C-alpha cells in the first residue's frame, strides 16, 4: 500500500445521504446533522446552516473522535461508537459510520437526548449501508480519478507566483 486510498461519492450517493439525514432531523427535532470524514474533512451538512466555521469544526470533531477512540482502547473497549457532549443549551451527539465517517448531530432544548439517540440508531444503520456500498465501489475502481487534475500544476504556479 502506497498511502491512504482516496474515495469519492456521486451525486446520487449524496442525495441518498441527505434524504436519510433529513428524515432523521424531522423525527428527532435536532437542528443540524453533519457528516465528517475521519481525517477531518466535512462531507455533508443537513438542516439549519451552522453559524460557526464548519471546516474548523470538522477537523476538531475528527480529532475528538480519534482521541476518544484511543481512550476506549486504553480502558479495554474496542471503541466508543457514540459520544455525547452536553451543554446548557446546545448539545452534540456523535456516532461512528462504517468506521470511516462520523455523524455529528447538533440539538438544543427542543430535542431530548433520548429521542436523538433512539432515532440516530436507525439513521446510523442506514448510513452504514450507504457508505459501505460506496467504499466497496471505490475499492474496485480507483482509476476514475485519473486525469481529473491534469494541468493543475500551472494553476498552483499561478497561485503562488
Amino acid at each position, binding site marked *: *500500500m*502506497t*498511502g*491512504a*486510498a*482516496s*474515495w*469519492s*461519492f*456521486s*451525486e446520487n*450517493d*449524496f442525495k441518498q445521504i441527505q434524504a436519510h439525514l433529513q428524515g432523521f432531523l424531522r423525527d428527532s427535532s435536532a437542528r443540524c446533522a453533519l457528516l465528517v*470524514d*475521519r*481525517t*477531518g*474533512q466535512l*462531507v455533508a451538512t443537513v438542516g439549519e446552516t451552522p453559524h460557526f*466555521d464548519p*471546516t*474548523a469544526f470538522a*477537523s*476538531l470533531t475528527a*480529532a475528538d473522535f*480519534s*482521541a476518544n477512540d*484511543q481512550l476506549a482502547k486504553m480502558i479495554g473497549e474496542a471503541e466508543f461508537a457514540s459520544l455525547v457532549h452536553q451543554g446548557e443549551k446546545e448539545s452534540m451527539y456523535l456516532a461512528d459510520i462504517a468506521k470511516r465517517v462520523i455523524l455529528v448531530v447538533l440539538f438544543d432544548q427542543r430535542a431530548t437526548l433520548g429521542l436523538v439517540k433512539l432515532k440516530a440508531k436507525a439513521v446510523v444503520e442506514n448510513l452504514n449501508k450507504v457508505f459501505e456500498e460506496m467504499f466497496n465501489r471505490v475499492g474496485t475502481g480507483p482509476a476514475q*480519478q*485519473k*486525469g*481529473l*487534475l*491534469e*494541468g*493543475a*500544476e500551472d*494553476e*498552483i*504556479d*499561478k*497561485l*503562488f507566483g
Partner: protein
Amino acid sequence: MSMINYASREINCKLVYYGPGLGGKTTNLEHIYGKVSPNTRGKMISLATETERTLFFDFLPVDLGTIRGFKTRFHLYTVPGQVYYNASRKLILKGVDGIVFVADSQLERMEANVESMQNLYDNMAEYGYDLTKIPFVIQYNKRDLPNAAPIKDLQAAINPGWPIEDATQQKATPDAAHPGESLVERVGGEWIGRAPYHEAVAVRGDGVFDTLKAVSKLVLKTLS
C-alpha cells in the same frame, strides 16, 4: 486520503507538518496564515499549551483555487513535536496525503531530527503507509542561525535515501531546485531515491511557500 466530492465539486487534501519540537512547524503555518488572502484560507485553530507548545495540532485550511471546475482545498496540520506526545501525533497522520518534515538545522538538534524522522517512518508504517511512496518534502529550517549544520551533513543524517527496486523508477532524476544534485541516482551499483528538500527561515517566511508549493504539487500530481 484526498476526498473528491463530485456533488459540491471539491477536492480536499490533507498535509501534515512533522518534525522535532521547536523546529518551526507552527511558525510555517502562522506565516502562511498571515500571507494568504483571508478569502482563500479559513480560520487557524491551535490546540496548544499555555506556553504555546503544540499540544494536539494546529490546523489551517487553504484554498488553492479552482482546477477543472473543482475547488481544491488543502488542510494543513502540524503535530506536537515533543517526544511524549506520540499518541496524539500519530492520530493526526491518519489519512495524510502529503508530508513536510520540518528539520531544525542547528547542530545540537541533529539527534532530535533523526529521532523524529524515525518516529515518522514508524507511525506511518503502523497505518500501512509507505513514506517513500507518498508526497514527501523535507524543509531545513533555521538556515540563518550561526550554528546551522551544512546541508550536506543534514542530508546524510536525515535524508540518506532509500533503495529503489522498481525498475521503471530506476532513472537518474536531477533535483530541479538544486543544480548538480539528484533525487534519484545510482550509487555503487544501487539505485537510491531521496525526498526533495528546501531551505528555510520560517520566522522570516523564507522558503515557507516554496515548501508548501512543492508538496502541494506532488499531492495534486498523484491525482493527475
